């Protein structure tokens, strides 16, 4: 194994093993866990930066003709750095939230495994390895969302998240099989487009399904809303650089496949655009900060998916990175407030920015970026990818712009609340979630500031001087870049929308109540899923179980009736009842048994008669049978 290979395995091994160790060690290491966690994350970041330049690749045989390959190329290099960086930031900031609470070792361990799984996903070159990272990520997300497992509703949320994403993951299993059938023996991601039809389409469908599910695109979005039950730090990581991002990443990575399939690109683009718009509206309708951010995540990821569908790989990638910074920033801020004030309801957060200045400012930076207001990062990156879209289809471009407007709306809405003057009775709204500490630990501020800087500055990615080499690295040199008119248009729209929103304040939207509720309720997707899938499944399960007990088992026992009759007889022996065991033919067997013993009358003459008759009959028969 070459040094390079060693390096890539090391990159994966450090967080995974470190995390596993922490998680297994459990309470024993609670006190040092935060330190270790941060240290490991830092090491991972360093490794990440190193591999980003050395671009190592490793491969090991795994199954018959299938190897586990991992390498760092342009795309994954960016991801690796982003992931490790965000992880470090989040872990640092979460020290405040978790030091001292119910065993932090578990938390940091799981977070590290989570990050490691994400790294595995982004570096994997074969489907099997990707799937491994992919699934582990899902499982750890379950454990993290359900971190406060004493409260059942959080656990249910975790179940929902895991089951929804896994349902989508099945697509990858199918894709793997189909790829094999299609002649891609090694299941290399790069070779997937070469799969023979019709398997090619199966592969595409599987991959797309999995990606959409993971990145909470329509119609899977609801799980992300439930995922808010988890700690803020978890949300920060989950929404920014990993999990949801993974879906977008997978689509960007397998873009050639989408192209090869023909129908893949438009579908993906369509779903992305729709999600960007609709979930944006959902975000607008939210009155809970974290719910708002969650919906906005779906919407922003929608842009990336749109980019993947439109072939704007570079743009999508920029958006992903910038958004990672922004979203982690916002969630950290929200987490800080939640920690301090014990609430995440927007009305209750009025004036929060005033009472916690640093948080407020950094939050605002994030919001501005999210709104797509110049000169912050997302303004540029979004336009970069929209440029690619425009080239494909003006219609989608229009939808994209609309979505941009909406994003401005919900972002500013959040900002408007937190900058309201602090009302005297503000404290009444606090401590709805938990007992707030009324202070923001300084350790949190550092990552906030750093994230804010990145959130503001990452727009430079779109600056041609940087964008061109990056595009080359991504092998997407041909992709168009945004032009000044486009930038101007989007800026104008963003500013306008922002102004409007600020002026509108918290007046209720001029929409009929039902529409409102649809959007506040995340389009009722979860209820739909329950009605259409979960309930029927459980009903069927129950029915089958009953069938198994009452019909199948009984039928079998009836066939073996006398066997269970024996069970009764045996039970009679020791006076214990086995009545439930005894069924149908038991009686039949008993009857047979009795019939068989009826000849044994004890009367000799009947023996004589029977024997004589029987032998006479036999003789008669065999006189004629020969």
């Amino acid at each position, binding site marked *: 194994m070459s040094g390079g290979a060693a390096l890539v395995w090391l990159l994966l091994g450090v967080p995974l093993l470190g995390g596993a160790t922490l998680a297994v060690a459990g309470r024993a290491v609670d006190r040092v866990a935060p330190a270790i966690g941060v240290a490991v994350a830092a090491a991972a970041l360093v490794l990440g930066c190193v591999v980003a330049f050395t671009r190592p690749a490793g491969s090991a045989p795994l199954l018959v003709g299938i190897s586990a390959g991992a390498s760092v190329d342009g795309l994954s290099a960016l991801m690796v750095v982003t992931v490790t960086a965000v992880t470090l930031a989040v872990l640092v900031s979460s020290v405040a939230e978790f030091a001292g609470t119910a065993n932090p070792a578990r938390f940091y361990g799981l977070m590290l495994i989570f990050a490691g799984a994400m790294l595995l996903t982004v570096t994997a070159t074969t489907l099997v390895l990707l799937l491994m990272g992919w699934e582990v990520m899902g499982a750890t997300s379950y454990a993290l969302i359900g971190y406060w497992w004493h409260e059942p509703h959080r656990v249910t949320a975790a179940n929902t998240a895991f089951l929804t994403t896994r349902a989508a993951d099945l697509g990858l299993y199918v894709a793997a099989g189909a790829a094999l059938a299609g002649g891609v023996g090694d299941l290399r991601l790069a070779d997937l487009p070469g799969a023979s039809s019709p398997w090619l389409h199966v592969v595409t469908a599987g991959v797309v399904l999995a990606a959409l599910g993971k990145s909470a695109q329509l119609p899977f979005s609801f799980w992300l809303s439930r995922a808010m039950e988890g700690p803020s730090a978890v949300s920060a990581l989950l929404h920014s650089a990993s999990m949801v991002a993974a879906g977008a990443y997978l689509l960007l990575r397998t873009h050639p496949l989408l192209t090869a399939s023909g129908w893949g690109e438009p579908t993906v683009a369509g779903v992305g655009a729709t999600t960007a718009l609709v979930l944006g509206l959902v975000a607008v309708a939210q009155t809970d900060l974290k719910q708002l951010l969650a919906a906005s995540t779906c919407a922003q990821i929608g842009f990336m998916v749109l980019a993947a569908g439109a072939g704007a790989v570079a743009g999508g990638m920029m958006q992903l990175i910038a958004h990672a910074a922004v979203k982690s920033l916002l969630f950290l801020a929200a987490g800080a407030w939640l920690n301090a004030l014990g609430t995440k309801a927007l009305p209750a957060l009025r004036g929060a920015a005033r009472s916690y200045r640093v948080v407020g400012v950094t939050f605002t930076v994030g919001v501005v970026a999210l709104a797509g207001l110049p000169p912050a990062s997302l303004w540029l990156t979004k336009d970069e990818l929209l440029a690619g879209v425009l080239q494909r289809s003006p219609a989608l471009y229009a939808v994209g712009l609309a979505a941009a407007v909406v994003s401005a709306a919900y972002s500013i809405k959040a900002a408007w609340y937190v900058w309201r003057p602090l009302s005297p009775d503000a404290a009444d709204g606090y401590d709805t979630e938990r007992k707030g500490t009324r202070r923001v630990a300084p350790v949190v501020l550092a990552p906030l500031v750093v994230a804010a800087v990145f959130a503001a500055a990452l727009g430079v990615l779109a600056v041609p001087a940087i964008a061109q080499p990056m595009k080359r690295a991504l092998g997407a040199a041909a992709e168009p870049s945004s032009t000044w008119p486009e930038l101007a248009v989007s800026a104008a729209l963003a500013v306008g929308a922002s102004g409007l929103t600020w002026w509108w304040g918290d007046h209720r939207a001029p929409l009929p109540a039902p529409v409102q509720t649809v959007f506040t309720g995340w389009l009722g997707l979860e209820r739909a899923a329950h009605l259409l899938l979960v309930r029927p499944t459980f009903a069927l399960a129950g029915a089958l179980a009953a069938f198994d007990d009452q019909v199948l088992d009984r039928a079998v026992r009836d066939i073996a009736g006398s066997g269970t009759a024996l069970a009764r007889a045996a039970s009679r022996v020791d006076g214990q009842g086995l009545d439930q065991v005894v069924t149908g033919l038991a009686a039949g067997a008993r009857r047979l048994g009795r019939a068989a*013993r009826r000849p*044994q*009358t*004890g*009367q*000799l*003459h009947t023996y*004589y*008669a029977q024997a*004589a008759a029987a032998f006479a009959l036999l003789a008669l028969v065999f006189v004629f049978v020969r």
Partner: protein
Amino acid sequence: MSLQLFLLLSAGLFSIGVYGALSQQSIVMIMMGLELMLNGVTLGAGAFWHYVAPGSSSGQVIVVVVVVAMAVEMAMGFAVTTAIFRARDVDMVDMAADLSR
């Protein structure tokens, strides 16, 4: 006077014996029935010897064996009857029906 006639007669004796063996209650009477059946057999054997296989001595030997069998069965019968009569004072098979099912 032919084989068939002899056989018919022995069949008759045999059947009467069957009837006796099946219908009688007293052990001794049952034994009589059996003896009667054997009687028929004797006759049959003799007839077969005379009309079918005078060359083979087996026919005669059968008769001897039958006679011995009669004696043996008779003796055993009396012995068993005595035993059960002593044990439970019955000589009727119907009264010896404790063992059943």
